[in-house]
């Protein structure tokens, strides 16, 4: 089971490190990652494998959003199916 994480906010040192540490603690493996700076905003998109994670996905989504608040960036985690549904026929 895969999820997509987005991180959007002002770029600063340690964002990637903090997100990766959080995911490692949850037993979530990063499958793909891309990052870019768009109009001054740091934008990172990750595809992660959540099948080994024992915490329910709904709770992980809430926790990672809170982690984002601590870091001062906007982090979302969504089940991959919503993106597949909207963009793949």
């Amino acid at each position, binding site marked *: 089971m895969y999820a*997509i994480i*987005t991180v*959007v906010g002002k770029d600063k040192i340690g964002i990637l490190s903090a997100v990766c540490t959080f995911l490692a603690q949850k037993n979530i493996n990063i*499958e*793909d990652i*891309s990052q*870019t700076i768009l109009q001054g905003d740091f*934008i990172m*998109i990750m*595809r992660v494998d959540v099948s080994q994670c024992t915490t*329910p*996905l*709904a*709770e992980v*989504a*809430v926790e990672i959003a809170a982690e984002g608040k601590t870091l001062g960036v906007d982090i*979302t*985690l*969504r*089940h*991959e*199916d*919503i*993106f*597949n*549904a*909207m*963009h*793949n026929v």
Partner: protein
Amino acid sequence: MISKIDVLDTVNMIRSQHLDVRCITMGLSLFECIDADPTRCAAKVYDKIVRSAKDLVKVGDEIADIYGIPVVNKRVSVTPISLVGQASGGYLEIAGALDRAAKETGVDFIGGYTALVQKGMSAQERAFLATIPEALSSTDKLCSSVNVASTRAGVNMDAIYLMGQAVKRAAYLTRDKGSIACAKLVVFANAVDDNPFMAGAFNGIGEADKVINVGVSGPGVIKAALEQVNGDLTEVAECIKRTAFKVTRVGQLVAKEAAARLNANFGIVDLSLAPTPAVGDSVAWILEEMGLSRVGCHGTTAALALLNDAVKKGGVMASSHVGGLSGAFIPVSEDIGMINSAAAKGITLDKLEAMTAVCSVGIDMVAVPGDTTAETLSAIMADEIAIGVVNNKTTAVRVIPVEGAKAGDMVEFGGLLGRAPVMPVNAGSAERFIHRGGRVPAPIHSNKN
């Protein structure tokens, strides 16, 4: 991997353009609760709803967290109570049980205090209609609807007159709250069995025991997409179709997931564009983005017809079962663009009526002066119902004669119901027409067999 642009597109739709799942509605059959003893019937109704829908809110919230999309309302719709309560006649006792069950399960609304009287009424159904004002004014979450006409049956004008009186009475009973009971009462032509939207939701008699129907929304998403289109109206229609497809796919995903988790049948996805009073969530603003200076001006009906058709075409392919009302809603009090136009006298009741000929659903959330007579209210209903019957579509009237209010006043309903400028009604009288009563014969094109 899904492209970066697509990911950001989805995130942006949800975060900035108000894409949400407007409602997950659980339809429940209550036929097994019929009992000649009113207290026993009410108890069975309460038990069945609480037993069946106890996890509805929890599941709705879980799905919202997993997919990162707001599920704004969780609702229950039930078998028309005029049928469930006919053996006992204890309609008001059942109304109380429905309201308590809604509160116990934590759902936002419960619909189905409903009668289907398009062709005629039994004495019990007549008695049921008389209980509607009290049922709505003595409960908080209960919604009521009455189907007074269909293309196959014609128009039951006796029922329309009774509903004019019921709306008047409901307004009076909740006179200290802006006549709010009328916001929970819909009069229909060609009512549908699987509508997830309130106040008109009920679980039709041909429906399964436990069904999940989902209503999606997203006027803000369509408005934002159209901001990028500078081409002709064919390009406008194509853009709406593409966007409606994406929105409806979310509804399909949520409906299937909710049905599986709640051990219920997947009913339908209703791909209506439902506005809210929030800035950026307006159907009127889509029409204005197409090129109208203000909704209600000449050209509005044409723009709405294009929008409604394109939404259907985009949505139909996105879901395995499309149903409900599926189109663009134009409730006045729930749409910031409509509120602004009505307040500036840019849109009239007559123009609204014309618009309903090309969209779902009807004269919706329109406040009129408190001294509007039951006969005039009935005549407003009759006009709207005639449009539905002749055009073979669902139409509805949810009109609020706000006690003590005059044309031009502003009435606050709060929450999703918004606020409404009181619109003037025509000063002429249809009293003699309404008092004639009887049944308007079904139109010629209803004879299809």
